[in-house]
């Protein structure tokens, strides 16, 4: 089952930060690195439930604000020994943010 959601203008995510959205029932954190691109991960850290959308990011990873576990933006792989997090596809279509699950 695939869900696709149009989430409004890309500009609602400040450059270099992340914001959280609900896509169907799934909380999704979308990131907009300064180096370009859009990335979507499940918004909840698999370690202790931290809010990934509040994390610091660079072009490659987001760092959970609670215990600093790092997850690759591209595929959700954890770089610091916790479980991986689900990764989704985020794109920009006509200035609008689109996220696809599944």
């Amino acid at each position, binding site marked *: 089952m695939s869900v696709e959601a149009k989430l409004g203008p890309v500009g609602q995510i*400040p450059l270099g930060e992340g*914001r959280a959205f609900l896509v169907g029932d799934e909380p999704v954190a979308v990131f907009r690195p*300064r180096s370009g691109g859009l990335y979507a991960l499940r918004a909840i850290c698999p370690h202790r439930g931290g809010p990934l959308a509040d994390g610091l990011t660079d072009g490659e990873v987001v760092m959970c604000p609670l215990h600093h576990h790092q997850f690759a933006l591209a595929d959700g792989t954890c770089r610091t020994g916790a479980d991986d997090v689900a990764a989704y596809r985020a794109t920009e279509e006509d200035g609008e943010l689109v996220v696809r699950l599944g």
Partner: protein
Amino acid sequence: MTQIAERPETEQTTPPRSRLVVVGNGMSGARALEEILARGGGDRFAITVFGDEPYGNYNRILLSEVLANAAGSVVDNEDADDEIYLNPLDWYADNGITLHAGVRIVRIDRHAKVVLGDDGSVTPYDTLVLATGSRSFFPPMEGMWASRTALTRGVFGFRSLDDATSMLAHVKDHRTAVVIGGGLLGLEAAAGLQAHGVAVHVVHPTEVLMNQQLEAEASKVLRSKLQDRGMHMHLGVKTSEILTENGSVSGVRFTDGSDLACDMVVVTAGIRPNIGLAMVSGLETQRAIVVDDKMRSVDDDDIYVVGECAQHRGEVYGVVGPLWEQAAVLADVVTGADPDAEYHGSRLATKLKVAGVDVAQMGVKTPERSSDEFVQFSETGRGVYQTVVIRDGTLIGATLVGDVSKVAALTQAFDSRSALPEERIQLLFDLGSADDSSAVADLPDDTQICNCNGVSKGDLIACVEHGAESVSACTAQTRAGKGCGSCKGLVKEVVEAALGGAGAEDPADSYYVPGIPLDKPTLMREIRARELKSVSAVFAALAPEGREHVGSKMGLTALLRMMWPDDVVDERDGRFINDRVHANIQRDGTFSVVPRMSGGVTSPEQLRRIADVAEKHEIPMVKLTGGQRIDLLGVPKEKLQEVWADLDMPSGWAYGKSFRTVKTCVGTDFCRFGLGDSTQLGIDLEERYKGVEGPAKMKLAVSGCPRNCAESMVKDVGLVAVEGGEWQIYVGGAAGATIRKGDILATVDSHEEAIRLTGRFLQYYREHANWLERTYDFVPRMGLEYLQAVIVDDTEGIAAELDARMQETVDRYSDPWAADQQERTPGQFHDALPLVPLPQVPVR
């Protein structure tokens, strides 16, 4: 004289199992039996045990505890569960052992191979074990004995359960006890009696208490500790007579003619091995029964001897350690489990508590040869005395009184004769972050190194085995050292050892932040030269390939805000979430709100407002912080602006790597001890330096007198008022993950000077400390004298510049809560976890 008694009937009907007879049912007899049974001796032997005390065997070491306990609890010998009994009576039956408790063996007929009991019994043996132990020595003295066998009423030995229980019965209505003999046993008896509220006097013939174990200095420390606990000492005197009245003890007389009134005397003047049985039976005895290396009597291959009645290579042992070793060898030989087993003597190590004072002793007490090394530490005020004796690089003796925390390591070094640290004092102390790499190497792999993130030594080693080539790579992968940070040194040691020694110099260690390969001074020079005023500009100009690095952003943001107070480019993505929303993130994604309450002083009006806000917003927990403020916990991000507006109070910066709070005591306003107005000085400091950002948080305190109620000595900067209108300024203190007493930077005579020097120190710290380096690491790294020279004496001529730059920061201050009532970025206060129930923080 020899009676020919009938043999027990069982002997005639059972097949000829070999007959093992044990004489003596104390600790060594019981231990020997257990060791024999453990080697299958139960099948091989028909075992008979004689004990002249009418109990199952019991743990003599616990006698002093029996004494210290309430009277009566152990008197009942039916109470087989009590832990003083090593083996209850059932144990003998269960193991098919015939126990004759209360029967004394009076002679061994070695030719007939039988033992003769005082009840007329005759018991044959094939193998005999003598474990007759020892007894109290009663020095010849007038008044000691009531008859040939009975002590005067009120006089006790301290050796058997009977002794202990009759003493217990006696102390109930007696007030003053004299203990004759200040050895180990005597002091234990004294402590036990004291626990019953009896006034205790210890009489010892030399100045050295416990002279078997301790040399004079150690003994002196022990003595003063015992005296502190109310024990009376009479040293260097002898008792000449026990005074009696109506057949009971009424006092003692010393050899100098003086008397001491008492109603109880305990004689602990030493022990004597019980060797009468061996002597009348024709076995070689000197101080005790002489044995060979197989624990056999030198006269008779069928008679073994164990414990305090055995003399091996000239030594007679009176403590349990050697006894265990002897019993094992004896059992090996007797059962044939290892016919070649040999006992070669024991190295003695004793660890005990005497009246609440820890004492440990092993090997020799003092150096014996001129080439022996002797390390000695004495802190008599605290009652601590420690020595080690080293010969040819090997530990041959150690004495610890008052603090025995190092006894495990010392015992190991003593037993294994292992290599010792070059700095011998490390045997007694952990010297700060000393590179004790041998200790790290000895840790088992499952030892947890990082207690915050649960990283074991094995995890770090696995990291290296999977290709990590530096400390920073290992910490990045495991997060070891990324919690409170107090384990960083240990992590470094483990990784460096795994990498193959100290060769692995990690240049990343010197970087201010890991993503930019420059140390702080170079980085600051580059930033200034290129006028880099945003985090993204720094990455673009100075990072490898201009690449951003997530773990470097916070540090760069803090550095740029310090360097360019006027015109830093505010990139919110360079900030940690706390600094984006001016609140501290909690485990459930909510935030805590701490308004400024300068100097910890508040008012009814302020408290009322806080209460109203807490009720209006249903704040789940309202709590006092350690920094004398009020914390509103569990505020959702989207409610922060509203809560700030309703509070109408400024931010307390309880979330930042910044100046946090100034804790104060009530100072001169109300305190009758106050020497300086600590409350006002604390308020002034906080009002001036509020929110100043730096490499790490800065917590301050001001105390109005040296009683130090505001805990100033363990703060990043702490001020203490002293007599004469002066303030001591402590820097580099800590009482968190690390505990460190601050160093006195200066003593000044005015509030103004105190405020100025505090600011100058903080500015110097901001400019020179590494990212996340607290003052407790910074001050020792720079060196106190250097800091005093630069900050107080201005030897580098930079004081005015430091003051000016701090003033600039102070002038540019704006309250972030007021400033961010307007959103700074889209969705700044949007919930980051929409509509999903999260792990809730339980609310009280």
